[in-house]
């Protein structure tokens, strides 16, 4: 046997009694074992034994969903590490940030990784949403998975928002102030909601405790469950969306049409797009190694990029929270600056009505756009109207964000970025 040494050791180990009891199948060497390894392993059984070639095309999916999953894992790992030091106390939180920066071994890099992975997650959720839209992938039978995706988008924003106020710096304090006041503009329940979020009338210890609980347990748990359902549905819908092929066996059996007076096997529950229906065997490849190793490679790549960012750029930490003086201008992170620009015209319209309508429209989208054509291709000609509408909204959001980021200065006044006036430090 001329295999490399690590492989030989692995093969020897998986043939021993102990190795076999753990892994059951060693490195697969036949098609049968390639199937068995996927089914018998806990980590792999989530995935199908065979995947459609189309699902593997990086130019189609860009790997955005997987990247998000890996960012979520990195955030969980670094987040749990940070919890070993962090205390949600208005007295201590900021000092602990300084400890993480200057005292704790690797504390700086781990905090940086957490922050940059968080930023990347917001960015990639947006990109993922664009990908799914421009390829028409939200259409039947994937409508509800798009809705879950919109929910995950909101959760990501919620996690970011609750996260960046834990350091209890100026950004934290004024973000919590502005954010809960926006909630206060919600019709009917606004005032109560604000009181509930803050655990009182002023931004203080109770508010920090509440946002901490939301950030470390409530929102991540909900997100984890929704991610699980999101991925499970991708699998149940037969992998990633793809264009109809002439050879496809289209089989639409409605469940209710099945005879009810007999017991039936699992194969009879198959519907149009379940994994084994509508696929030609020659279009499929074994998940081991084609899918599994691509996924592993992408995971290593994402971790490397986040680590690179964390080593060379430090996460911002503003001055200690000061309830008397908001920084001037007081800016949210980039992903909320479009919203902040809207809010600077009207808190109710910009902070409640426009975002509310936008989220509602996104959730209803797959039920309003029922055209079946143009699925599984980027910028399909049949979808030119939908794509144009989406692009216009996207451009507006980007322009608002750019204005908020670069064209707003002290007192939220208009500035041009190449003539930035110095930040005002004013007294009374």
């Amino acid at each position, binding site marked *: 046997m001329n295999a490399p040494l690590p492989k030989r050791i692995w093969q020897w180990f998986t043939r021993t009694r102990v190795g076999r009891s753990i892994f059951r199948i060693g490195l697969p060497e036949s098609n049968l074992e390639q199937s068995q390894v996927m089914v018998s392993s806990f980590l792999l059984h989530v995935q199908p034994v065979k995947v459609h070639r189309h699902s593997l095309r990086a130019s189609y999916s860009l790997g955005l969903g997987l990247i998000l999953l890996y960012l979520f894992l990195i955030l969980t790992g670094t987040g749990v590490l940070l919890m070993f030091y962090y205390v949600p106390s208005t007295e201590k939180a900021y000092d602990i940030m300084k400890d993480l920066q200057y005292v704790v071994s690797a504390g700086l890099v781990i905090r940086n990784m957490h922050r940059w992975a968080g930023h990347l997650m917001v960015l990639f959720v947006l990109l993922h949403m664009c990908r799914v839209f421009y390829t028409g992938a939200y259409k039947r039978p994937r409508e509800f998975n798009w809705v879950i995706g919109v929910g995950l988008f909101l959760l990501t924003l919620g996690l970011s928002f609750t996260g960046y106020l834990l350091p209890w710096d100026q950004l934290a304090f*004024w973000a919590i*102030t*502005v954010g*809960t*006041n*926006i909630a206060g503009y919600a019709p009917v329940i606004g005032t109560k909601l604000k*009181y*509930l979020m803050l*655990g*009182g*009338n*002023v931004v*203080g210890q*109770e508010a920090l405790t509440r946002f901490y609980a939301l950030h470390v347990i409530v929102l991540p748990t909900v997100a984890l469950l929704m991610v699980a359902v999101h991925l499970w549905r991708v699998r149940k819908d037969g992998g990633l969306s793809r264009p109809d092929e002439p050879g496809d066996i289209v089989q639409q059996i409605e469940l209710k049409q099945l005879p009810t007076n007999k017991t039936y096997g699992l194969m009879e529950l198959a519907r149009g797009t379940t994994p084994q229906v509508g696929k030609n065997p020659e279009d499929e490849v074994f998940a081991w190694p084609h899918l599994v190793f691509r996924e592993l490679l992408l995971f290593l790549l994402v971790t490397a990029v986040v680590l690179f960012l964390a080593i060379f750029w430090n996460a911002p930490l503003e001055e200690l929270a000061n*309830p*008397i*003086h*908001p*920084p*001037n*201008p*007081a800016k949210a992170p980039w992903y909320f600056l479009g919203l*902040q620009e809207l*809010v*600077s*015209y*009207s*808190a*109710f319209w*910009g*902070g409640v009505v426009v975002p509310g309508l936008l989220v509602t429209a996104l959730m209803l989208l797959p039920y309003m756009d029922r055209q079946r054509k143009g699925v599984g291709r980027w910028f399909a000609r049949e979808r030119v109207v939908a794509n144009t509408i989406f692009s216009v909204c996207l451009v507006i959001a980007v322009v608002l964000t750019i204005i908020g980021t670069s064209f707003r200065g*002290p*007192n*939220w*006044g208009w500035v041009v970025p190449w003539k930035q006036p110095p930040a*005002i430090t*004013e007294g*009374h």
Partner: protein
Amino acid sequence: MNHSIPDNKKDVSRRGFFQLTLGWLAGSFAVAASAAGAVRFLVPNVLFEPSLRFKAGKPDDYPDGSVTFMEDERIFLVRQGNTFRCLSAICTHLGCTVNRADHGYHCPCHGSVFDDQGAVKSGPAPRGLEWFQVTLSKDNRLLVDKNQRVAADKYLVL
């Protein structure tokens, strides 16, 4: 031994109907009550927050024509001649602390501008800044009550 297999054709007896209905109702009620209790649990009953009534010192501490910012209370104490008023420094838009400008007040967060009377001159603020009641305590100190909102033309005259 086939009593465990449900038989759809069986008629429901009166007793069975009530047992079933009451069972479902009781179960649903327990769940709904638990949910309501959980929400109520999150609403605090006692607040450990600074008092909204506070003494602002002696009237003579404030020179004539002055506008004094009090950090901890986030208010401006305005003296004109022998009149005293108290203006909230919290922007009515989204709660930032406004800054005193040459004429009026500016909010740094979203650019609202207020005049000397606290009225909105420009920007997204929906209402003018609040005025609070100022009275004189028995020991001759200014007493501000942030629970009591008053009109801009209501003064404490000494």
